[in-house]
């Protein structure tokens, strides 16, 4: 763990291993994350996709320990590979000094809804500057100048004036830019974006993604992008992890996973979205059925109930299987699907 030169992945930024995060409500336990593993690399984008409620946000929250009150990381590890060597985040005290030193400075986060993520009673500038206050040694004037620079670099017009304004005067897209400005203010090594554009319209969505792509290329930021939009994945991701009911059912380089999906859920997801250029006659199929009750999960494969390819074996939980050096899948029948694809 103290090994500073991890051979195959010199650019590893974060690795999550067998993470189990449980949420407790009304004396019941929701195994929101049930053994999640993935890596994030510098200068790469990992997209996490999956239906609503599959645990994407809980994954993000676990990494920064911003979980709801009655919840806990029960097992597994989250290792942050920073400049000072690896840190086991799950062992840090939730709001302790060492956790706080990582939040914002090393790993920054952009939230799902820009309308509610900013505090309405403080100016945008104040909310950028307080991040600088805690993580940099800049003086008051320098912080103000930096806040203006950040807004400018996010493409906000008249930043000298806008920096003093309150969030309610910003449009949704501008608020999300301001959120990104806050997140990027201390040059974090990792940026976690939790569906940063669901609340925004398409053109602004494209602009925000372009902004993030630039950051990745120019600063070498590692990006973890949460989305449920396969189109976004195809466009932005280097790697993709498909989640279902608290588990990653398939993960790998985006080309492999999209071209050669091995899990029936990935296939169903891909079939459920229209693909540009395939014309009007393409088949679009909604995924039948509903996700199981999170408090009463099936013991076997979580997707079995809705799966076209279900067999008896699915009553037991399939293991995660590595099908190539970087592509893994959690399905009993993946060999058959591989053979199909080979034909």
């Amino acid at each position, binding site marked *: 763990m103290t090994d500073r030169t991890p051979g195959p992945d010199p650019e590893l930024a974060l690795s999550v291993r067998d993470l189990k995060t449980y949420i407790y409500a009304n004396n019941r336990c929701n195994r929101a994350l049930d053994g999640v593993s993935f890596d994030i690399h510098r200068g790469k984008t990992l997209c996490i996709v999956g239906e609503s409620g599959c645990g994407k946000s809980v994954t993000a929250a676990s990494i*920064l320990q*911003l979980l709801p009150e009655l919840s806990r990381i029960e097992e597994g590890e989250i290792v942050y590979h920073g400049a000072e060597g690896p840190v086991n985040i799950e062992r840090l005290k939730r*709001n302790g000094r060492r*956790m*706080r*030193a*990582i*939040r*914002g*400075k090393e790993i*920054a*986060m952009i*939230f799902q*809804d820009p309308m*509610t*993520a*900013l*505090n*309405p*009673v*403080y*100016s945008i500038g104040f909310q950028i500057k*307080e*991040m600088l206050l*805690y*993580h940099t040694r800049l003086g008051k004037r320098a912080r103000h100048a930096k806040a203006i620079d950040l807004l400018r670099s996010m493409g906000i017009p008249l930043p000298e004036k806008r920096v003093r304004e*309150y969030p*309610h*005067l910003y449009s949704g897209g501008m608020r999300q830019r301001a*959120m990104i400005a*806050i997140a990027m203010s201390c040059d974090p090594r990792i940026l976690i974006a939790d569906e940063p554009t669901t609340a925004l319209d398409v053109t602004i969505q494209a602009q925000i993604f372009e902004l993030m792509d630039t950051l990745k290329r120019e600063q070498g930021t590692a990006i973890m992008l949460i989305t449920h939009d396969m189109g976004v994945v195809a466009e932005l991701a280097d790697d993709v992890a498909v989640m279902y009911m608290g588990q990653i059912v398939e993960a790998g380089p985006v080309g492999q996973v999209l071209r050669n999906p091995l899990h029936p859920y990935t296939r169903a997801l891909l079939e459920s979205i229209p693909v540009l250029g395939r014309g009007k006659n393409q088949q679009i199929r909604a995924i039948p059925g509903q996700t199981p009750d999170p408090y009463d999960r099936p013991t076997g494969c979580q997707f079995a109930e809705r799966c076209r390819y279900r067999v008896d074996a699915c009553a037991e939980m399939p293991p995660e299987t590595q099908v190539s050096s970087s592509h893994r899948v959690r399905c009993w029948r993946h060999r058959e699907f591989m053979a199909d694809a080979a034909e």
Partner: protein
Amino acid sequence: MLTYIARRLLTLIPMAIAISFLIYLGLDLTPGDAVSHMIPPDVIGTMDPERLDELRESLGLGKPFLVRYWIWITGVLQGDFGYSLAGGVQISKIFLDRLPATLELSCAALVISTILGSILGTISALTRGTFADQALTVVGMLGVSIPEFFFGLVAILVFALNLGWLPVGGRTLPGYDSFWDRLPHLIMPALVLSIMMTAGVMRYARSSMLDALSRDFIRTARSKGMPEWRVNLLHGFRVALTPVIVLIGFRLPVLIGGSVIIEQVFQWPGIGKEFLSAVRSQDYPLVMMVALFSVMAVLLASLIVDILTALIDPRVRLGD
């Protein structure tokens, strides 16, 4: 901001007119008429009834109600409040004498309950579910439900009569006029008067704080790596404060009502005590003026609350 205040002031005017009209209507419907209200009663008794009728005529009492209202309200606006029936003293003089005492008492209670209530409510919210929170909740419930005069009597019994720490009542002793001399007299009534309001503010501050803490921007604040005190106070408390201040504005009538009783219990020489004796002796002109005055005070308080909210909340300040 100035235009905002000006506009709010303008909206107050029709309200004030409507209320003064209602009060004058009440005054008009009570037994007796303006002559008996304006001339000291001891003088009236000695006057010849025909003289009185003449006087009524000259005063325009035969005139329509609205005209009389107009004459009355312009008088009030010029500081002519009429006479108290008991003793025939000018009401404006009673106000000048008694108002400072009442203002002193209610302001002290207001300050105590605002500060104490917000602090306790915030502590309660931050420690929710623990013993401290539950204890505060129980105390708050008692504070809201037990009448103030009971606390007043108990306080007098314990701190004045048994322990002898504080004076039983009154506002000052003859010859001791500085604020510091008066302070021991102020402590008990102010604290007792503030109990109910403190409890109310505390409960409200608790729920407002809990609401603020559950909002998304709190998680954003935490994600910046700031210490908990800053997240809770600068982001949580600051947002929770606005509704609390609005509540305090709405609760001011409670304070005014409470001061009537507390002034009686502690023999505090304020308007409230005067009001009670005026009601008892059916001194309608005085009762009416005190009523008018209280309503105006509440209206003014609501204006101040609005201005404060605007200062605190940028959405209100800039939203129009």
